[in-house]
């Protein structure tokens, strides 16, 4: 016989209510069941009206991020058994507008992401006959940790600065900018600096450091931002002392 745990799930039904409320459900669980499995149990067996996002169930699609007992988590990688005997609170990600129940609007992040050009920028492409762009294992290692980001937005949810100032471009976008800046094939760092050297770019960050702690992929956005600040500061010193120099 499986054990049972109580889930308190945040509900927001804009056609009925103007504030979020909590509905409580009791679900059976075994030790391999994630919070997402609990939500699926609710949806399939108890209350089909519950709305939430999920896809891969294996920590790679980044769509099932929610606030579990106050902490931003991927619900597919957070286990019910760890919260026994409950009750366990599941809320939508913080710092984003809630569309319904556990679903938030991610448009802001998507627009910010594009602004930092998270792709390889080249001033001139090599002809195909010129062969591939070679990269040594050391060069790969430079940016690889930052390339693990799955855009789950847990870092935005953990970041009080983003909560306070929604114009702040945010942890994941900066980490992804760094991922391409540090790639030896890329030539777009000056373009990205335009966006990131704004006050709402890297300088808005005061290094709370929670983004790094909640990242399910160990990306270290906080480190990326501080490194970026150092680079930007050194660049601007160089520009100051050698204004027209190389």
């Amino acid at each position, binding site marked *: 016989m499986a054990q049972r745990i109580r889930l308190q799930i945040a509900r927001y039904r804009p056609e009925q209510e103007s504030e979020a409320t909590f509905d409580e459900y009791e679900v059976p669980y075994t030790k391999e069941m994630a919070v997402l499995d609990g939500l699926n149990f609710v949806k399939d067996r108890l209350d089909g009206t519950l709305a939430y996002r999920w896809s891969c169930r294996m920590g790679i699609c980044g769509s099932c991020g929610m606030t579990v007992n106050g902490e931003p988590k991927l619900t597919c990688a957070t286990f019910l058994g760890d919260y026994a005997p409950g009750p366990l609170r599941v809320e939508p990600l913080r710092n984003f507008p809630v569309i319904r129940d556990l679903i938030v609007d991610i448009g802001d992040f998507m627009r910010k992401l594009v602004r930092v050009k998270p792709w390889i920028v080249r001033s001139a492409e090599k002809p195909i006959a010129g062969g591939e762009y070679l990269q040594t294992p050391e060069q790969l290692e430079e940016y690889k940790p930052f390339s693990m980001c799955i855009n789950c937005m847990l870092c935005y949810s953990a970041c*009080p600065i983003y909560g*306070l100032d929604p114009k702040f471009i945010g942890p994941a976008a900066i980490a992804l900018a760094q991922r391409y800046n540090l790639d030896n094939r890329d030539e777009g760092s000056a373009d990205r600096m335009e966006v990131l050297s704004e*006050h709402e770019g890297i*300088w808005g960050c*005061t290094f709370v450091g929670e983004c790094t702690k909640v990242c399910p992929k160990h990306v270290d956005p906080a480190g990326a931002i501080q490194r970026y*600040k150092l680079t930007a*500061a050194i660049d*601007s*010193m160089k520009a*100051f002392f050698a204004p027209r120099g190389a």
Partner: protein
Amino acid sequence: MLRRHPEPLLWMLFSAGGVVSGMLMPVLVLLFGVAYPLGVVDAPTYDGLRALVANPIAALVLFTLCALSFLHWAHRFRHTLYDGLQIKHLNEVIAVVSYGVALVGSGVAAYLLWQLS
């Protein structure tokens, strides 16, 4: 081309101030703030301390410590008011006042050390 912002410079000064104050202040607070007043160790004599401060290297270290610590304070103070208390509408006033105080403080430090040398 990069747009000119004061932020990189202010951040550099803030960071330098963080390192310098982190390295020097704990021992100075321990001695001047706690150990001497409590009499755990004898405070330096007037002549001894005056001679020490008159040393150009010591004076330079002290000036660096004071100026960078003030700038470190100004930067953090401004950001904490901005984030912690959400008084963004006063951001510019706060910035001018904080960095202004830091500059005046650095000026006072320079004057005192100059007179003591």
